[in-house]
């Protein structure tokens, strides 16, 4: 008997995406580059490169270095600024029919609020993702996302500015995952992206210098996947909003781990650099798994971990 195709529609609070596979911020540009094999066409949504009010030049090179089963990057939030994104790239994305989540950041709460106001009024956007790994200039450069109180205040201000679906992309560094998550959902966000890169470093032993220009950077790739899987499991067990997992996915099995511990969607990042067909492979693998396990919809897959231990606050 022929089995019916599983339902891979992906409801995420106020949003319904056609499928749960997304491209992570900073790994698919603005979605308008000529990518191998039209990679973005089958995506649930594209999360854009982090966008700020004004264009930013980014860090001096070298900005990237490969690390064991992953990479270290310090791009420095280089971006073309919100005006150029809206004017030059969004119309192309709209025409291509790509669902777009705009990742955005500021150096101050005011900049975040101004951006939220500007982006919140734009047609053609599916949602916003708040990048809280940006240094807070007024607080000595400590990232907004590292302090639950600062984070709560920021999310609340941004929330008040726009009714557009709003996700917070949590930093895994220097903060208890549940505290940051709770601070965000209590301030009214519609989803949590767990997580970002992990602060790290690599040294050239011959020159005795860091291998990237500014000394430290963010580690991504399969090396960090177990760390993020733990955070997704911990947050998804109690969060009243959807969790979108982001960290080290290189195959469908990796994505399935995230769904099973409670993620409702996944973002694919640096894994696509070594495998441009990864988005499609992951989606196909999820479908195959659902057929094999007789799962009719994603709802039956999400949080299906056996004997899930209770998570204490």
């Amino acid at each position, binding site marked *: 008997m022929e089995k019916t195709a599983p339902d891979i529609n992906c409801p995420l609070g106020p949003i319904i995406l056609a499928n749960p596979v997304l491209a992570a911020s900073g790994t698919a540009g603005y979605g308008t580059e*000529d990518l191998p094999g039209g990679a973005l066409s089958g995506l649930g949504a594209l999360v854009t490169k982090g966008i700020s009010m004004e264009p930013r030049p980014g860090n001096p*090179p070298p*900005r*990237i270095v490969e690390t064991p089963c992953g990479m270290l990057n310090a791009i420095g939030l280089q971006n073309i600024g919100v005006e150029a994104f809206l004017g030059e790239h969004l119309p192309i994305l709209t025409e291509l029919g790509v669902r777009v989540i705009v990742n955005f950041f500021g150096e101050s709460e005011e900049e975040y609020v101004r951006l939220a106001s500007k982006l919140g009024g734009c047609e053609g956007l599916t949602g916003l993702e708040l990048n809280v790994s940006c240094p807070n200039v007024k607080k000595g450069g400590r990232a907004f996302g590292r302090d639950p109180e600062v984070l709560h205040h920021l999310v609340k201000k941004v929330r008040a500015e726009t009714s557009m679906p709003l996700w917070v992309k949590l930093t895994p560094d220097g903060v208890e995952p549940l505290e940051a998550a709770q601070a965000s959902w209590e301030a009214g966000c519609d989803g949590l992206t767990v997580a970002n890169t992990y602060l790290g470093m690599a040294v050239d032993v011959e020159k005795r210098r860091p291998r990237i220009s500014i000394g430290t950077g963010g580690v991504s790739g399969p090396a960090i996947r177990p760390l993020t899987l733990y955070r997704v499991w911990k947050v998804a067990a109690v969060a009243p909003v959807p969790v979108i997992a982001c960290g080290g996915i290189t195959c469908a099995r990796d994505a399935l781990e995230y769904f099973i511990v409670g993620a409702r969607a996944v973002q694919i990042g640096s894994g696509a*650099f*070594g495998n441009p067909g990864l988005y499609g492979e992951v989606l196909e693998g999820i479908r195959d798994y659902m057929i094999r396990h007789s799962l009719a919809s994603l709802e039956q897959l999400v949080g299906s971990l056996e004997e899930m231990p209770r998570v204490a606050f």
Partner: protein
Amino acid sequence: MKTSLAQVDLLEEVQPGTFLLGLAAPNISREAKPGQFYMLKASQGLDPFLPRPFSWLRKGEEGSRSGHRVEILIQVVGKATALLARMRPGEKVQVVGPLGRGWEWDPARFPLLVGGGVGAASLVSLVEWIPPEARQAVWVLVGARSGRQLWCGQEISKMGAKVLLASQDGLEGFHGTVLQLLKHEEARLLRAETEVFACGPREMLREVARWSESKGLPCQVSLETPMACGVGVCLGCAVRLPGDGGYVRACKEGPVFRSQEIEWD
């Protein structure tokens, strides 16, 4: 842009630690221009994690139709290159490309090509692009640490260009660096319409760019930078522009630049 699993149809150690890799896949080389590059990944494993950029050196021949195969020079420097060098004919390599902006050749000018180490691979494709009858007017200077590492220069000399070799160990050609050779021979190399094409380590490129500027000659350079995606999205391969001009991407706006387009210091 194409992404393919390409079949290895040639793997030969052409000089100590450097391998000529032939790859066959539908249409991977038809549109390839000299100076463009490919991202290659030998394994489906996670370490190495990222693909690596390589410029191509020849296309066609080896029994395959042109447009279906490309040759790449691999110098073993780490795990990713060691894996590529251990491939066997029939095995598959993941290939994305051709990528980036390549050399621009103006038939009205006299090319002077300067290559250091395996960087000279990209000059082979440039010489092949120049019609055979015009190659007698092409000067090519190739240098390497050892006289045993001048395979590219020897290949180019078979193609009809005028080749001068330099080795720092003095085993072959001029005893010294390719830059010293360039300055030593400049009287007979230079014409008013010369255009310089350089490929090799950054320090060498900077000196060639300065030398060209001092002679009032246009100069194109092909930069080697670390890359993650190769297709313009990760912004990892930033190249600084002069003044406060910010950065461009080696994988998109390059890897070939006019020497005055970028900041050297």
